[in-house]
Each structure stands twice: as structure tokens, then as C-alpha cells.
């Protein structure tokens, strides 16, 4: 049995300390090592997906120029880029990476409550990644069905990778979901059961709140994807007809009858929409903490922020069919889903206001994590506002399936979360590695990424207005598009390659820091949350030395009047900061 690090047992000495290199770094049960394993694997596959997007952009910007890109592998690049980025990079990185690292440290626990399961979660995730990557090399290659994998075409001739690619894709998703479930149960149980003394739910940092609610969403949403993956596997291999109506494909009757392609879309988006928030909520939480810390000010409207996270999480389950306005589902659904979708804009807008109001009358340090956080506010606001176009069913008619959609979702769940990922990595880097990064390189990395991505995606919206469809290998000549649309495409490609190349700066910084970086202060940002108060940096196995911390206040006691320092760590007892006590009652 693993131990349960509940607060009452803080004097028990743990017995699963790693003994060897293997058990310390490979088959590790330490949440911090597992977090790093998750993070490195996710970033590795993310780089593959980045290369795939570069290939796509080369074709779109300069069609007919590259003999190694043809319609077949183009659609494979499109599909794998999307799937990897959404699932294997962002979901894994935010929950498996940041979730693993931050939850126990921020709630004052020694580890996740099920360390062995946690280790398994990573290795099963790695297996899903391996299965995914193998699909590039099987006969017929990876699936080219688009990341949405819509049947019938996902399993019918006419789509690349219908021999083995789609089977491995579905299998990999199934394995990923198993891994996620093992991790997810762990995160939730840890948050609910393993908080240190005094760490009430409403004292938790918003990072934990975001990750916690996102995990609950994941546990409720991923089963829909799992069953649809299994059903499609059956349709493909056993010739069932869950999603397959009677069709005539390339002049042949494949023998299906009676299934519904739209059923798959409902299942997929019942997962797919919450998935957006599985990625977004951790980003919301993390960016709140970054803004607060570097502005030396409490997050504005903490309780409202918590409730907004919960409200968005709840609402995210009743908006899914806004991805399907023009899918051919009963058009009357449009009224309902447009209304719920626009309602979700209200709690989301509140979050944006509160981030900005957190900066109001702050004392803003424009360090690298702060730059990324403010960049996030800009891109997320932009992406959120364009969501109001697409969510409003009428406007979706002209814009659905155009580059406007591509631009929108890349702003909102590509660029924005990635800016938070980088901000978070820079922010916690000193704690994770015990080294400082190079500030100048970090700033260059920010500027090139931030400006470069805006140069990619702002113009892309306008291609959508003109009516350029997404997922087109080439436009060819059309009457309604001016020739300049192609020039715009070429410019977008140049920006995209620029942004891709700029990421080298990040890796240079990582290597520089690990080799030559100066030793980091245990709490270089003067932050209040518990992870900065560990006795060791990086924290050792068990995190807290002999005694678990006790939490005495919320995570945002910055610049409390009458107190000498401009921050009071969560584990500082009230009597040391007498003036802060008034607010103590509220939180």
C-alpha cells in the first residue's frame, strides 16, 4: 500500500525513498520526477507537431514548390499536428506535467496520494505516444482524417492511412485515456485528501483550482472519446455500423448500413469541447498566479475567479454542438447551443477583467514570466472575442470550416496556452532545477514568439472572411479570391517559420541554464505559495523535510498594508503579520 499523506500524519517518516538511479529517475514514483518525464515527453512530441505544421505552412505559402509534400502526406501532417498538439502535448503537459509538479507542492503534500499509479500513468502515456509515432511508419502511413477523425471518411478509402494509421490512432487514444485516468484520479484525490493543515479549498492557489477542475472535466469527457474510439475501431475492424450508414464508396458498396456519422460528432465534441477547457483552465489558473506574483498584488476577485473556473467547467459540457452548427444536425439545436455558448463568455470575460484589474495599482515587474502572462491576456482576449463570432450560430454559417476557425482556435487554445506554458516554465524553472535562466534570452524568446504568432494568426482571420476553406492542400484558381490572398499566405508562412525557429532560443536557454546558470534563490520572486517555501531547492523527495507545512492564509497576501515585506508566505502564522489578520477572516 502506498501511504496517504494526509495532514494528520505529518510526522510519519516515509519508506519509499528511491534507492537507486533507476528507481530515482526512471521508474520513479516521485511526483516531481514524473512531472519532468511528462513534460519532456510532451515537449518532444510537440516539437514533432511543430515540424509538421512547418511542412503544412510551406505547402500553403508556396504551393507546388516542395516535392516532398503531396496531398496524401499533407493531410497526414494536418491530422497528426492537430492531434499531437491538443492531446499529447497540451493535455499531457498541463495535467501530467504542471499538475504533477504543482499540486503536491502547492497544497503542502509530500507526494500524490497514489505514487505507484502516478508512475504507471506516465509509462502508459509514453506507450500511447510510441503507438502514435509508430503510425507514421506502418503501410499507408498515419491517418489523414483530420484530428476530428470524422467517419465515414476516417475509415474509408479516399483518406490516407485507412489501412493501419487509423487503427493505431484510435488505439493510441485509448491508451492515452487510460494513462490520463490513472493520473487524473490521483490529482483529484490529492487535492481533496492530501492538503496540509489549514489549506482550505478557498486558500488554494488558482493554479491548483484550474488543474483540479480541468482534471474533473477530463475524467468526465474522455470516456466519450474512448467509447467513440472503440466503436469506430469496431466499425473498421469488425464491420459494425455504429457510425456507418449505407454508402457507395468509389463505386463499391462496402456493406455498411444504418449507422449515423453525426452520432460520432456528438460523442467527439462532447469530449472535444470540454477538452478546450481541459487545456484552458490550467492556463487560466497558472497565469493568475504569475500575474499576481510579478505584479506584487493579490489576484483581483479571487472568489469570483474560483467560481468562474467552476462555472466555465460546468458550462463546457452543454456547449459542444456549437462545433456542429453546419453538420446537418437538427438545426433547431442551434438556438440552444448558441445561447449556452455565448453565456460562457460572461464568466470568461470576468476572468480577463480580473487579470487586468490585478495589474491595476500593482508594482509590475516585467520579468520573463510576466511578459508571457501579459502576452497571454492579449492573445486570449483576441481569441475569446473571435469565439463570439463562431459561437453565434448565424455568423458560423459563413465562417465555419474557413481559416477564420483555424485562426480563432490557434489564438485561443494554441498560442494562448503555449504562452502560459512558457511563462510557467520560466517562472518555476528556478524551483524545478535550482538554476536561473538567462533573462535576456528569455525576453527575446518572448518577443519573437508573441509578435510572430500574432503575425501568423491576425491575417488568417481575414482569409477566412474571404472564404478560404481550411484543410485545403491548394486553392488553385478561383474567381472570388484576389491573387493577393496567396501573398498573404506566403507572409503567414514566413511568420510561422520565424516563430518555429525562435523556439531554439528556449532550448538554448534551457541548456545554458542547466550548464552554466547561476544557482537560484529558493524563492527568487518573493512568492507566497507553498512550493516556494520548501526546505530544499529543488525540493527533495518528500518535499518538506521532517515537518509538513501548515497553511495560515490564502496564496495572495502581497503588499499587505502595515507589513514590512511585500509578501507573506502561506505558511507564515498570523501573529507574525498582525495587520494581515483582518483579511484572514475572509479567506
Amino acid at each position, binding site marked *: 500500500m502506498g501511504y496517504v499523506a494526509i495532514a494528520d500524519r505529518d510526522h510519519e517518516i516515509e519508506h519509499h525513498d528511491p534507492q537507486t538511479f533507476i528507481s530515482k529517475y526512471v521508474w520513479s514514483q516521485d511526483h516531481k520526477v514524473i512531472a519532468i518525464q511528462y513534460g519532456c515527453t510532451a515537449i518532444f512530441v510537440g516539437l514533432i507537431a511543430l515540424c509538421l505544421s512547418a511542412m503544412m505552412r510551406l505547402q500553403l505559402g508556396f504551393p507546388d514548390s516542395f516535392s516532398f509534400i503531396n496531398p496524401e502526406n499533407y493531410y497526414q501532417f494536418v491530422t497528426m499536428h492537430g492531434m499531437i498538439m491538443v492531446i499529447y502535448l497540451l493535455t499531457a503537459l498541463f495535467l501530467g506535467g504542471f499538475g504533477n509538479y504543482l499540486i503536491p507542492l502547492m497544497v503542502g503534500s509530500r507526494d500524490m496520494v497514489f505514487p505507484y499509479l502516478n508512475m504507471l500513468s506516465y509509462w502508459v502515456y509514453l506507450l500511447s505516444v510510441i503507438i502514435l509515432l509508430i503510425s507514421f511508419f506502418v503501410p499507408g502511413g498515419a491517418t489523414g482524417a483530420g484530428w476530428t477523425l470524422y467517419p465515414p471518411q476516417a475509415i474509408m478509402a479516399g483518406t490516407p492511412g485507412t489501412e493501419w494509421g487509423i487503427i493505431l490512432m484510435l488505439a493510441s487514444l485509448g491508451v492515452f485515456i487510460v494513462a490520463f485516468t490513472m493520473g487524473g484520479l490521483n490529482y483529484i484525490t490529492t487535492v481533496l485528501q492530501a492538503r496540509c493543515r489549514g489549506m482550505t479549498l478557498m486558500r488554494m492557489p488558482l493554479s491548483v483550482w484550474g488543474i483540479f477542475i480541468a482534471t474533473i472535466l477530463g475524467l468526465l469527457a474522455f470516456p466519450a472519446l474512448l467509447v467513440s474510439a472503440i466503436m469506430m475501431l469496431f466499425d473498421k475492424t469488425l464491420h459494425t455500423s455504429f457510425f456507418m450508414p449505407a454508402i*457507395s464508396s468509389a463505386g463499391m458498396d462496402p456493406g455498411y448500413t444504418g449507422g449515423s456519422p453525426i452520432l460520432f460528432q456528438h460523442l467527439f465534441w462532447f469530449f472535444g469541447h470540454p477538452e478546450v477547457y481541459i487545456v484552458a483552465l490550467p492556463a487560466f489558473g497558472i497565469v493568475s498566479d504569475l500575474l499576481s506574483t510579478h505584479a506584487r498584488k493579490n489576484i483581483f476577485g479571487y472568489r469570483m475567479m474560483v467560481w468562474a473556473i467552476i462555472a466555465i467547467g460546468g458550462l463546457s459540457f452543454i456547449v459542444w454542438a456549437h462545433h456542429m452548427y453546419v453538420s446537418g444536425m437538427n438545426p433547431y439545436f442551434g438556438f440552444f447551443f448558441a445561447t449556452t455558448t455565448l453565456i460562457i463568455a460572461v464568466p470568461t470575460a470576468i476572468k480577463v477583467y480580473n487579470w487586468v484589474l490585478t495589474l491595476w495599482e500593482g508594482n509590475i515587474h516585467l520579468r520573463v514570466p510576466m511578459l508571457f502572462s501579459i502576452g497571454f491576456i492579449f492573445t486570449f482576449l483576441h481569441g475569446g472575442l473571435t469565439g463570439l463570432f463562431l459561437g453565434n450560430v448565424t455568423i458560423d454559417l459563413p465562417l465555419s470550416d474557413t481559416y477564420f476557425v483555424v485562426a480563432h482556435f490557434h489564438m485561443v487554445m494554441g498560442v494562448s496556452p503555449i504562452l502560459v506554458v512558457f511563462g510557467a516554465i520560466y517562472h518555476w524553472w528556478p524551483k524545478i532545477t535550482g538554476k536561473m535562466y538567462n533573462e535576456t534570452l528569455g525576453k527575446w524568446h518572448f518577443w519573437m514568439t508573441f509578435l510572430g504568432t500574432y503575425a501568423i494568426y491576425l491575417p488568417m482571420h481575414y482569409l477566412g472572411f474571404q472564404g478560404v476553406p481550411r484543410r485545403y492542400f491548394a486553392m488553385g484558381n478561383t474567381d472570388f479570391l*484576389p491573387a493577393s490572398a496567396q501573398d498573404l499566405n506566403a507572409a503567414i508562412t514566413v511568420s510561422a517559420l520565424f516563430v518555429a525557429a525562435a523556439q531554439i532560443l528556449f532550448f538554448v536557454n534551457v541548456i545554458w541554464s542547466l550548464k552554466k546558470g547561476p544557482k537560484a534563490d529558493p524563492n527568487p520572486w518573493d512568492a507566497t505559495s507553498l512550493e516556494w517555501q520548501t526546505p530544499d531547492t529543488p525540493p527533495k523527495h518528500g518535499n518538506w523535510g521532517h515537518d509538513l507545512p501548515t497553511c495560515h492564509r490564502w496564496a495572495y497576501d502581497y503588499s499587505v498594508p502595515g507589513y514590512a515585506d511585500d509578501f507573506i508566505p502561506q505558511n507564515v502564522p498570523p501573529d507574525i503579520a498582525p495587520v494581515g489578520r483582518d483579511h484572514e477572516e475572509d479567506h
Partner: protein
Amino acid sequence: MPLAVVLILLVVGSVVFHLLSPWTFTELASNWGLIDFTIDVTFWVTGTVFVLVNLFLAYCIIKFRYKKGARATYEPENKKLETWLTAITAVGVAAMLAPGLFVWASFVNVPEDAIEVEAVGQQWHWTFRYPGDDGKFGEVDAERITDENPFGMDPDDPNGQDDILVYSAEAHVPLDTPVKFLLRSKDVLHDFAVAQFRVKMDLVPGMETFLWLTPTKLGRFEILCEELCGIAHHTMRGAVVVDEPEDYASWIAKQSTWAQDSMKAAGNAQVGAAQFAVCAACHGQQGEGMQALNAPKLAGQSSWYLKRQLQNYKSGTRGAHADDVFGKQMAPMAATLVNDAAIDNVIAHIETLPDNPAPSTVAGDVGNGEKLYRVCSYCHGADGQGIRAMNAPRAAGMSDWYLARQLENFREGIRGSHLSDYYGFQMGLMASVARDEKAINDLVAYINTL
């Protein structure tokens, strides 16, 4: 400080880009001006929020940037402010949602007097069906689809007898008349989208979907498939031609009904043999082709394909391009076939000719050609035998030098750039797989091995 300046510049730049850039909505050609209106309302609301929030953000960064000795204020909450912001946001959201739902209601309810046109999608083609004089469509069924009955018509349904089946990617509709497009797919998901009409809808196999609009401008408007439907998704194009009502009526009158189509006599090979004498002068007595005269092998080529090409030559859809030297020679020859019956007769004769594989004249890297051919195989078949349902003619065993030249013509736009040549347009996009002479030779060399 640079961050604040950059944010302000980005805001100003975005607004300027929006107002001044040449890339904006394609001009409207339907009744859906209300969609554009809803978009305008949304632009005003969201644009205002975008500008205000970002300028406020920039202001905060300037005003409250780190100063030694400065201290942030401590203000955990401000109920009043939060309530106000929530309320204003809700009003803004309602202002956008209300027109949206209102317009959606009119999209969902089709006018009573709308004429009906059925658009049928398949990988990677459009065809159309009109209900005929009775105004009713006959039953169709995917399981009844064959090469001879590509719509899957039910022969026993009286409503279907006068249906007009349009084997072309071009639909005609009358100006200023509401048109309800019924959408049907034979195989996978597709999407019927015309940028100028604003509305779009998926085609879903196993069910019928719809959209409606009233065309308000004359002209030809391109249909794009906008739901990923496989490797040639981007080539799935068609057009809606908006005519004056009288032109539309005369176009309809010229179309034959399904019953008439079904009763057409087959071609007469003996009559065709006499006509073929003209062809034989270049293509050879056995239709074996003569490279010296730039005449490809005909024997063994798919009949439906020969027929379409002859029709294309006659109508100027093919062989009219200035650089299509040999096509221009063929066009007047095709004109000697006075009508479709004559074409059918000649083709019936060609069907009787012995199909011996044409000699190989093109050499290349077969291994590389095999890789290139993967993309071709989706339509032309793994053996290059051609697939009628995909409108893809036979490639294997035919004149290889001719194949090479056509690939080049497609790629260069010498063939397939005529507006009515939808299949040629597709090949134009797909021929980009063979980018240069070597690639073409490799590809054709591989086809020779099939």
C-alpha cells in the same frame, strides 16, 4: 515600457488592418445581408472590448510598472465593480446573440415558394438533381447506386421518372427566387459552401440536409467542399450559375428527364465504323495510336471518358487553349461528329477494337514513380485501370508519351483551365504531384509496369 507601446501598436495596427487591408468579405450575392449585419454588430461590440481592455492593460503597465520603493495596493475584491462588469458584459453578449438567433430562425424556416434543387456529393464531385415538372423527387437509395445508376434512383418510383439528373458540377438557379438546396452524400461527409451566398451546410451520408437562399446577383459562383472528405478534398469544386428566370427556364427545358435518359439507344458500332475512318487517319485503324502523329491509343479506353472528351472538344471546353497545339487539331475533328448519337456510334466501334498494350516509350525510375502514383491510385485505381465512379479514366496500357504530355498540360494549365472543365481542374491540382519532367517520366514509367 516597450511592452505597453507594443500593445498599443498592436491594437492600432489591428484596427488599421481591419479597416484598410484588401482582404475582407467576399461580395454578397444572396439575400443573407442579415448575416453580414450580425457580423457587423459583433465587430462593433468585440472591437470595442478589444480596444478598451488592451489600452487599459497598456495603461496599467505604464502607470504601475515596478518602481523601487513603490507598493501595490491591497484590494482583494470589489463587489460593486465586479457586478457592474458582469452586467455590462451580459448586455453586450445579449446584443450579439439576439440578432444571431433572429437570423438563424429565418435560416431554419424555408420559404414556402422556394424551388428545390438537390446537390449530391461524392468523392470528389458534385452532381445535381431537379424534381422535374411534378415538383417531386423520386426515391433514391445508396444501396442502389451503380455505374449505370449513379444517383441510386428507384426505377419503380413514378416521381422519379421526370427528375432531371445533371451529370456536371454546375447547377443553374433563377435570380431572385428562393432556392432550397437539398443536400445528399453518397459516401462521406462533404460541405456545400458558396462564399458569396454566406450559407453552408454539410452533406451527410444516410440523411438529407438542406440550406436555402435567394440569389440576388447574376453570374457563376463557385461551390467549395468545406468538410474534409479525403485526399482530393481541395479539388471538389462546382458552381451555381444564377440565370435570369427565362434563361433558367430554357436551360431546364433543354435537360432530358431520367426516363428519357434511360430510353436512349446504345451506340451502333457498324454505323460508327464508317465515322471512325476519319479518326483512323491519325489514331490508326485499330485505334492503337500513332506517336508520330501525336494521336494516342483509343482502343481499351473507358467509353464514358471518350464520350466526355469528344463532347469537351466539341464545346470548346478542351482544345481551345492557345498552347494546346494538338488539342487544337483534335477540336475540328471532333466537330465532325454531329450529335451525341454519332459520338455513341464511334465509341461503340472503338469498343470492338483489340486492346493491345501500347508500347513503352517513356523510361524513368519506377521506384520513385510508384511512390508518386500513390496519390493517383485513389481515383485511377491501384492498377491504373480507371474507376468510372470517380470519373477517372484508365491510365495503364495506354499511350505513355500521351500520358506524360497530358500530365504536363494539366500542370501548366494548358488543359483543365476552362471554367466548365471541372474534372480537368481537379487534374490540374493533382498533377502538381509530378513537378518536373523527371517526376512525370518516373510516374509514367511506373504506370507502364501496371
